[in-house]
């Protein structure tokens, strides 16, 4: 069995790591390259890099930042933001990414998932899904950096994306993002049970207990957090020691 993964996330805009609350009110969190190196050395199991304004600004991803960040990490490095074609994905792999996440580009053109999976294998294609509870209580998938409701049910879209070839789902709860009130356990559990690929839970991490809950009750395969780690409120070694003591299998740090 694989261990549960702890994944720091670098949300990028204008070359800087930022952290918002519910996808707005961004605050500067520092230099991506220095943070990436620190997390890699600290025992993070993977690193996610998201260029969160590439789509809305209709520009390509920050390639030079990807290139320089990738040089500093010897753990898996997943990159996303504004990916619209197989050639965009190939560019990112050449730049040093190990996996590429698709979000708006896949909602607009679901065949992109299949094309990318055929070219690079489905284990290389991550569906990044930003979910928000609608008035009816159903979770919908939002696009364009969380600014537009796609109208798709988040759970159904996750299932469809896996069927089309996505090898992993990065599931972010917009409602919980940046609140530090805990992950959205129910949404994560539902997607994790319904989708036959690993699920990374994201949004809302505020304490070590939240990680325990999302692994144990939310059935997540991995958990992602940003501000907790960036602002030094929690370190990866202490989180791993806690989870290990709670009988959650995590990777030992050498």
């Amino acid at each position, binding site marked *: 069995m*694989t261990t549960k993964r702890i994944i720091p996330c670098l949300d990028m805009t204008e070359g800087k790591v930022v952290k918002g609350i519910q996808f707005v009110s961004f605050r500067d969190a520092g230099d991506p390259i220095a943070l990436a190196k620190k997390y890699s050395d600290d*025992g993070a199991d993977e690193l996610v890099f998201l260029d969160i304004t590439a789509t809305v600004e209709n520009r390509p991803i920050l390639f030079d930042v990807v*290139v320089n960040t990738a*040089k500093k990490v010897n*753990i898996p490095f997943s990159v996303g933001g504004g990916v619209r074609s197989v050639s965009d994905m190939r560019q990112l*792999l*050449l730049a*040093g990414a*190990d996996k590429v996440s698709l979000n708006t580009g896949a909602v607009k053109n679901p065949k992109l998932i299949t094309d990318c999976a055929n070219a*690079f294998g489905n284990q290389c294609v991550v569906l990044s899904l930003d979910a928000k509870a609608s008035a009816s209580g159903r979770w919908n998938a939002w696009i364009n950096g969380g600014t537009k409701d796609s109208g798709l049910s988040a759970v159904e879209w996750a299932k469809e994306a896996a069927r089309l070839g996505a090898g992993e789902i990065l599931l972010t709860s917009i409602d919980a993002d940046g609140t530090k009130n805990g992950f959205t356990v129910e949404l994560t559990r539902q997607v994790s049970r319904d989708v036959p690929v690993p699920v990374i839970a994201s949004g809302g991490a505020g304490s070590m207990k939240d990680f325990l809950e999302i692994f144990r009750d939310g059935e997540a395969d991995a958990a992602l957090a940003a501000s907790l780690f960036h602002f030094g409120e929690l370190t990866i070694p202490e989180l791993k020691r806690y989870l290990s003591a709670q009988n959650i299998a995590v990777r030992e740090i050498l």
Partner: protein
Amino acid sequence: MITIIDYGLGNIGSVVNTMTALGVPCAVSSDPFVVGSAAAILLPGVGAAGVGMQNLKTRGLDSVIRNQVLRGIPFIGFCLGMQLLFEYSEEADTVCLGILKGSVRKFRAEKKVPQIGWNTVTVSESNPYARRLFDGIPAAEFYFVNSYYPVVENPDMVAATTKYGETFASAVVYKNLFATQFHPEKSGAAGTILLTNFIKENL
């Protein structure tokens, strides 16, 4: 100098970064003449077996790789770069390089496929070359991303095993060839030690 084979897929950038960080001079090439005269070869792999084999053939690399491995030059393969060494893969019903006897099958026992994450690698203690390569790694956990796994015909070639539903050969050795189903280039300190041991042994 190690030649990293570019066959149109895979995390080439990432592999170059790792080898460079380890101080190993490397060059990326898809030219069969360059690969054919290389002193050592690295076959990376993030990708699908069908496209991978097709790309190797289109570039005229399949027979070159086979000849180089049989000649006994140092060879290292990661993930798909390991799977393609066998005779056949279930993925897209693909005939592979056929350098090693065995085939590649899809995981069936675990609910979630692909396997993505860190898993335990148990070294074959009876294999001295395997023991040397994994020497100095206290907790042998490595990073895996795979839906398929190799079934090796010759047990002497199995350097390590891992369990994900099925128990499978997660590393193989044969003469100067070493190939892993996991990604040492992405396995933090454990991967760095393993690659350093390979380099010391071969380059």
